[in-house]
């Protein structure tokens, strides 16, 4: 039987205090860095039951349970909790907000200690690797030498992959869901539409809007485009079809006619309440820069991996389709890595990893029993 976690809290630690600032992939330095994180379950005495959950573009450290006074639980609550896939009766779950984020970890909306003002565009461009290095600092601080697993979907999957390559001795298993080893032209293109929507909003003001009106229209548009890419034609059709908004027939004007229009508008408008537009720029850029193979081939990149891999994709996910991960699976096979894969039949598109808990839960529950070689 599964249960819910109940009330949880976000905690914070600070790392990379000057002069021990973090040297980013770009070569620039950043510090101090505050990391927001949540933990669920209990760390065992030999600290061997820790699982790191990595979030996607708009996620945060609040992966499960309820914050005091909230009605909506964390973004992966259907997967994390007592008796759930990431079983908090067995495992110690850690979830942290990524570098560049806006939910407690240092990002463009954080106060720059030098200027006492928000960083804005003076915040350095960060990468998936930088996010992972910061997560490693958190794991080190918690005294954990080896993670039982690193797991995540979409951008979280990229982080899990980077973990397995960057810290092969610190990862027992990597659960890589609905993701890619490097952004394709199409994936970059959708992000660029989102970024342009934000940056052409006059309120964006070169990223300097923290004491003014934020670029709500821009980030709203970015979110609308994003949402379309996260759904499938089938799921949109099921949810909205051609249904009209409280009217019998179309208006023959440019007011909103269709349900899908008002849904997207609502999604876009509500997004600015919880997400910083600059963070959206930085994180979407980090996704676009992600290329696990760098200048090498994936065969070479995976030469030293030790983790067991579980690769999950979804049939209706056209943003990160299954075939794009074939070359990664091939490279893992060539390197004799222990890799399992499953393409789950689902109609929810890319969002399946957040929604389709049924098949995914069992796969993860059973896979997590695997011990390292």
């Amino acid at each position, binding site marked *: 039987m599964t249960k819910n976690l109940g009330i949880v809290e976000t905690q914070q630690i600070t790392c990379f205090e000057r002069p021990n600032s973090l040297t980013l992939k770009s070569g620039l330095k950043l510090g101090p860095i505050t990391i927001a994180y949540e933990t669920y379950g209990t760390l065992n005495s030999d600290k061997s039951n820790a699982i790191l959950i990595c979030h996607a573009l708009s996620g945060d450290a609040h992966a499960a349970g309820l914050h005091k006074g909230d009605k909506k639980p964390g973004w992966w609550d259907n997967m994390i909790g007592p008796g759930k896939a990431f079983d908090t009766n067995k495992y110690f779950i850690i979830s942290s907000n990524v570098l560049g984020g806006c939910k407690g970890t240092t990002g463009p909306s954080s106060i720059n200690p030098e200027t006492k003002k928000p960083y804005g565009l003076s915040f350095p461009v960060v990468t998936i690797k930088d996010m992972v290095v910061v997560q490693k600092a958190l794991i080190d601080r918690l005294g954990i030498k080896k993670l039982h697993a690193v797991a995540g979907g979409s951008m979280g999957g990229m982080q899990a992959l980077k973990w397995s390559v960057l810290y092969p001795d610190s990862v027992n298993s990597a659960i890589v869901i609905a993701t890619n080893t490097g952004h394709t032209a199409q994936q970059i293109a959708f992000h660029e539409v989102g970024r342009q929507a934000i940056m052409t909003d006059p309120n964006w003001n070169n990223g300097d809007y923290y004491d003014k009106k934020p670029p709500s229209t821009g980030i709203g548009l970015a979110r609308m485009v994003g949402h379309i890419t996260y759904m499938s034609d089938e799921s949109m059709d099921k949810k909205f079809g051609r249904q009209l908004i409280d009217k019998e027939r179309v208006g023959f004007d440019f007011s909103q006619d269709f349900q899908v229009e008002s849904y997207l508008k609502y999604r876009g408008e509500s997004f600015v309440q919880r997400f910083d537009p600059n963070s959206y720029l930085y994180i979407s850029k980090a996704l676009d820069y992600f290329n696990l193979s760098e200048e090498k081939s994936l065969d070479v990149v995976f030469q030293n991996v030790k983790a*067991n891999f*579980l690769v999950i994709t979804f049939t209706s996910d056209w943003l990160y389709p299954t075939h794009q991960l074939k070359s990664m*699976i*091939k490279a893992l*096979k*060539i390197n*004799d890595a*222990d*890799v*399992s*894969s*499953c*393409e*789950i*039949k689902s109609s929810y598109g890319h969002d399946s990893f957040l929604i389709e808990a049924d*098949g995914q839960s*069992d*796969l993860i529950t*059973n*896979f997590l*029993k*695997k011990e390292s070689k």
Partner: protein
Amino acid sequence: MTRRLDYKIITDLINPDARVLDLGCGNGDLLSLLKEKKNIRGAGIEIDEKAVHSCIEKGLTVIHGDIDTELLDYSNKRFDYIILYESLQQVLNPKKVILESLRVGKKVIVAIPNFCHINGRFQVCFRGNVPITKELPDQWYDTPNVKFLSIKDFQRFCDHYDIKIEKKRALSRNQEISFWPNLFAHVGIFVLSKE
């Protein structure tokens, strides 16, 4: 019960601690058995999503995909054994799969259903229908099989492509058949190798 004898024969053919790739591993029953009895290090390839879930449940390593394409990824002689347990008749290009298996594996174990068992021949000759037997229970319109062969056909194929048959076993229900296997055996099991 037939399955048990099949599995027992295959288990006996495999050396302890071997590296095994099971093509079309289904629910992973055979791989689990080999892990338990022979401590093999194994992986499977399976096209059916439900079966993939069962494999993961058993703690097995499994790739969800097509035998024909997934097999191409492995380097030469990577595995000690490749197993094709009643899956060869379900692939579109069996010749390619066998030859690729012989490239990737040092030995290939193939179990095929014998479509020319006497019961089947009787049905073809006297009843005028394609064989429906306990071993081949599906009607023509919903059988997963796409290729139909006999023990003799398979041996001819091996001869033709210079594939060495190291061992061969034939069985019917729960007993081994040595007399006229192409007539009396339901299943043929072969251990193949190629220089």
